């Protein structure tokens, strides 16, 4: 036998405790790995998309407002002697219909890339698997895997919904999933000339990439080209884009980061707790080891070895679980942003983070108890009755707790006076939690006394005994109440935040998305805000359906907003302009944050705009200011009538009256229609309208959704995210529940002898059981009541913290059902968890109990 084997034996002898420690490590590591990995994958997807897209290009030319560029400039640029290639691209979103038989039919939103085959091949790699690189400029190319998804093969036909209606195109080539075809698997390539014809963008392109002959002279080239461009066009290094998409990802990622930070705290705390408990349970054994000749160093190494062993196993399992979690999260994001992300990117970083966390926390959590254990006196082993915790409350712990609370307070204050650092609230919350826990040992006596007194009508004499027993095991009681406190505080904190956010989305939806039915080509891309166009003659046809009271159309385009001088950024902010029919004297269909609804509506009709709060924050503008919008070379100034809560494109959106947009910015076309029916329509006519709209949609290859269906869809998306958060939360609670079972079981084991004596002297089984349950009830009150209160505080802080990012706070409401519900559930878990050890104590074999070991 070796000491190492001894460790393993010790771990095995308490499978429950080992499992608890493992689960805590697994949860912590898995949360970190999953979040880091999915964040890297989504970020990476955007970056990779960008890089493969830009290839060897060093300069990118776009129109300042995101509109088109006249392609005459392409030849002009090609004449430059220092340019190796000039690559024009037209990119549009469209709907593709594929599949031959009814069963195979597929309908999908895709990105159509119109490229110039001759010019593009000089900059980017396209590897053909089969077929040709276009046939006289005709046909489409698809990445081979994507073609399989669509159920089409070389030579098949696909239909594309374009502004000119449905167009048939033949698949002429299949591309290897490498190079340019890899950046986005759901893309379709057509030749530039063909694309310009299909999308009615004659002589237009969206982007021009320049590849220099000498890469070292890129900067020079950029400067010269920028100077030579006609007004309205900008030249920049290729990486300066896609900020818009990134920002919409940001808020989701923030939510995940917050959730994993909180679940991490719970995990760390439980890991620390189990290791500390491990030592306090084994004091006697450790003292025997000391008595028969184990040095302090040997004891320390023994315990640290055990911790690292568990830490290692937990970390490995956690990484695997984390990868699964990352897979789930990226699928969620795909749904949310209606895009296809590349398969999970397995980079070392998430694993390094996970390992640092898993092993680091285990090491840290073992080191303290190990040092503590090495100080166990060999004398303790000599005593026949288990040693009592001699450690009084170290004033250092209380002092440190107060210092932590003070720092948390200062941070919270700094935060409220305007230090909008992203992690400030989280750090403050963590410090506050730790601080409170550190105050428990010092206040345990009076708190337990107080709670026992209050519960005494219920607990009677058993309560008094329970109180004594809890104080005898001060350290363990502190750890258990600490876990309860942290679990409920983070639970209520995170839960309230989730519910408030979901409410906020719901509120926004009900205010902003009005209409009984919607007819459109696609769900607008939540990230870019763009969707495929819809034939603009449909409005009239829909209006003619009997019972329809109004049809309003909307058009969504991208624009650039000049920032105010006070804004953080100097560059124009990319945003989405939503041109909608606002009708005077009607209800304003926006979730306003600034401004009176009637007044804002009047102003909108008169030519003002309403901007999303995130846009307001980014551009440094507010209601009453003037805003400069540029699009396709035109710049126009508008007054801001108000600001609104906005979830579309992450809040970087603004609203304008449709006619005004047409007059001042030349915005034509329709992305979708919102149809309203008469107020007092019976169900039959409503159903007839729905059927008719469905028919129209079918014929045109469009999407028709009712208000309810759309709401359900948005709810689904939201639920997908919050579902993940709830799962994390639930796991925290489960682990905390195990923690209680563990503590109380240990308590019972340790009290075996005393319980046996009590039973012999007079106590009935019922009374013994009640005494153990009373211990749980008292600990529950001490840990959970402050936990609930602090949790509400955390939720408030987190809600306020969104102000920094989104320019508005999520309305903070303490949901009584959620608040008291979580409290009661947690309390129930505590008492139920106590049932097992209580039962065990009640069934104690008296003869066994009186044996020493």
């Amino acid at each position: 036998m070796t000491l190492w084997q001894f460790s393993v034996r010790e771990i095995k002898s308490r499978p429950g405790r080992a499992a608890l420690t493992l689960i805590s490590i697994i949860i912590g590591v898995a949360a970190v790995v999953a979040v880091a990995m999915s964040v890297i994958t989504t970020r990476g997807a955007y970056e990779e998309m960008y890089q493969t897209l830009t290839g060897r290009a060093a300069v990118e030319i776009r129109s300042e407002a995101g509109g088109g560029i006249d392609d005459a400039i392409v030849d002009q640029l090609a004449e430059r002697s220092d340019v190796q290639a000039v690559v024009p691209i037209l990119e549009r979103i469209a709907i593709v219909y594929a599949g031959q038989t009814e069963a195979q039919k597929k309908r999908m939103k895709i990105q159509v890339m119109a490229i110039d085959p001759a010019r593009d091949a000089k900059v980017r790699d396209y590897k053909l698997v089969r077929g040709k690189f276009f046939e006289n400029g005709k046909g489409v190319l698809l990445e081979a895997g994507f073609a399989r998804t669509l159920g089409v093969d070389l030579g098949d036909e696909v239909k594309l919904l374009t502004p000119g209606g449905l167009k048939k195109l033949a698949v002429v080539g299949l591309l290897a999933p490498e190079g340019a075809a890899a950046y986005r698997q759901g893309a379709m390539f057509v030749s530039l000339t063909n694309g310009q014809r299909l999308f009615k963008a004659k002589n237009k392109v969206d982007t021009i990439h320049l590849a220099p002959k000498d890469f070292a002279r890129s900067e020079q080239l950029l400067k010269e080209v920028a100077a030579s461009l006609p007004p309205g066009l900008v030249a920049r290094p290729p990486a300066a884009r896609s900020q818009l998409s990134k920002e919409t990802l940001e808020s989701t990622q923030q939510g995940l980061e917050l959730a994993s930070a909180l679940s991490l705290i719970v995990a760390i705390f439980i890991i620390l707790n189990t290791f500390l408990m491990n030592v306090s349970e084994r004091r006697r054994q450790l003292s025997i080891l000391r008595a028969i000749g184990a040095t302090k160093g040997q004891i320390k190494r023994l315990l640290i070895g055990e911790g690292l062993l568990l830490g290692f196993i937990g970390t490995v399992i956690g990484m695997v679980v984390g990868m699964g979690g990352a897979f789930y999260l990226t699928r969620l994001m795909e749904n949310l942003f209606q895009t296809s992300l590349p398969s999970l990117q397995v980079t070392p970083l998430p694993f390094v983070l996970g390992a640092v966390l898993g092993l680091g926390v285990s090491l840290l959590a073992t080191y303290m108890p190990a040092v503590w254990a090495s100080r166990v006196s060999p004398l303790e082993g000599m005593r026949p009755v288990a040693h009592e915790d001699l450690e009084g409350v170290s004033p250092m712990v209380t002092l440190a707790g107060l210092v932590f609370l003070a720092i948390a307070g200062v941070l919270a204050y700094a935060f409220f006076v305007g230090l909008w650092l992203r992690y400030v609230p989280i750090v403050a919350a963590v410090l506050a939690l730790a601080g409170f826990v550190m105050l428990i040992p010092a206040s345990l006596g009076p708190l337990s006394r107080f709670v026992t007194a209050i519960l005494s009508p219920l607990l009677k004499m058993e309560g008094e005994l329970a109180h004594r027993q809890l104080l005898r095991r001060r350290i363990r009681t502190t750890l258990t109440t600490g876990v309860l406190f942290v679990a409920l505080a983070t639970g209520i904190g995170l839960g309230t935040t989730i519910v408030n956010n979901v409410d906020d989305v719901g509120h926004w939806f009900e205010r902003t998305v009005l209409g009984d039915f919607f007819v459109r080509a696609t769900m607008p891309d939540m990230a870019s805000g763009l969707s495929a166009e819809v034939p603009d003659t449909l409005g009239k046809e829909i209006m003619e359906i009997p019972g329809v009271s109004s049809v309003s159309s909307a058009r969504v385009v991208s624009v650039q907003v000049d920032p105010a001088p006070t804004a953080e950024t100097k560059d124009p902010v990319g945003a989405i302009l939503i041109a909608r029919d606002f009708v005077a004297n009607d209800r304003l269909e926006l979730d306003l944050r600034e401004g009176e609804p009637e007044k804002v509506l009047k102003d909108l009709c008169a030519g003002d705009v309403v901007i999303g709060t995130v846009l307001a924050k980014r551009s440094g503008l507010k209601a009453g200011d003037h805003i400069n919008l540029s699009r396709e070379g035109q710049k126009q100034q508008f007054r801001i009538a108000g600001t609104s809560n906005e979830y579309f494109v992450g809040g970087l959106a603004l609203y304008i009256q449709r006619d005004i947009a047409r007059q001042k910015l030349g915005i034509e076309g329709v992305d979708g229609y919102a149809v309203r029916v008469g107020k007092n329509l019976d169900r039959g006519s409503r159903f007839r309208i729905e059927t008719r709209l469905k028919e129209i949609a079918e014929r045109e290859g469009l999407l028709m959704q009712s208000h309810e269906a759309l709401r359900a869809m948005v709810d689904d998306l939201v639920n997908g995210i919050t579902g993940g958060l709830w799962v994390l939360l639930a796991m925290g609670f489960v682990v905390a529940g195990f923690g209680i079972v563990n503590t109380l079981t240990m308590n019972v084991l340790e009290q075996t002898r005393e319980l046996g004596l009590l039973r012999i002297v007079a106590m009935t089984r019922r009374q013994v059981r009640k005494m153990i349950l009373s211990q749980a009830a008292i600990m529950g009150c001490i840990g959970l009541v402050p936990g609930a209160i602090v949790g509400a505080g955390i939720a408030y802080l987190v809600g306020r913290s969104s102000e920094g990012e989104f320019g508005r706070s999520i309305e903070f409401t303490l949901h009584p059902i959620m608040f008291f519900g979580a409290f009661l559930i947690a309390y129930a878990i505590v008492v139920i968890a106590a049932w097992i050890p209580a039962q065990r104590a009640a069934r104690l074999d008296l003869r066994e109990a009186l044996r020493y070991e």
Partner: protein
Amino acid sequence: MLVLEARDLTKIYGAADARVEALRGVDLQVIKGEWVAIMGPSGSGKSTLLNIVGGIEVPTSGQILVEGVDLASLSDDQRTIMRRKRLGFIFQSFNLLPTLTAEENVALPMVLDGVKPADASQRALQKLEQVGVAHRRRHVPGTLSGGEQQRVAIARALAIEPALLLADEPTGNLDSASGAQMVRLMRELVDDRRQTIIMVTHDPQLAALADRIVRVRDGQIESDEPAGAPVAAGVRDFSPAG
């Protein structure tokens, strides 16, 4: 040859009101192969003395020489190594590690000392044979009787071939038959192997089996005389070696 020499040992616990003078100037000498029984009323300082001799506690003042080494002047680690190599303990509450088998419990001090696991378990088996519980070597303490547990504890104490075997009421938790068996075992050790033993006991019959009885009262040695009172003679007959 002197195995143990204690010079003017004092031990004071607590301070002010809670001050207890557990030992007040104890001098004691034990030679190799001698079996000393310590007796005295409860609270007189017997356990304190034994713990100090065993290097588990340090005296407030005085010297405590085991084979010429002053335990009081050693660092904690040095004292631990001294315990590990030269001192064997038997406790009233056997104090075996519940997760280890009998054999492993016996091997543990050697393993702690860096003896190769295979050698350690071979020596452990020898010791278990010596105390007559070799057939129980794969059992964990929970499945052993009290007498068997105590014999495993003796084997553990003997495994390192200690200069001094210390036992604090070793029969306190045993029935009289097991107790007698245990004491017979100790007698054998002394007679056959010249093992030096210091044993605390309340039982005059057991004490009579020792070579010498030291009586402690109020932290001081009251009397120190050879065993051999008339009662003891009868008990001595139990011993086959006798």
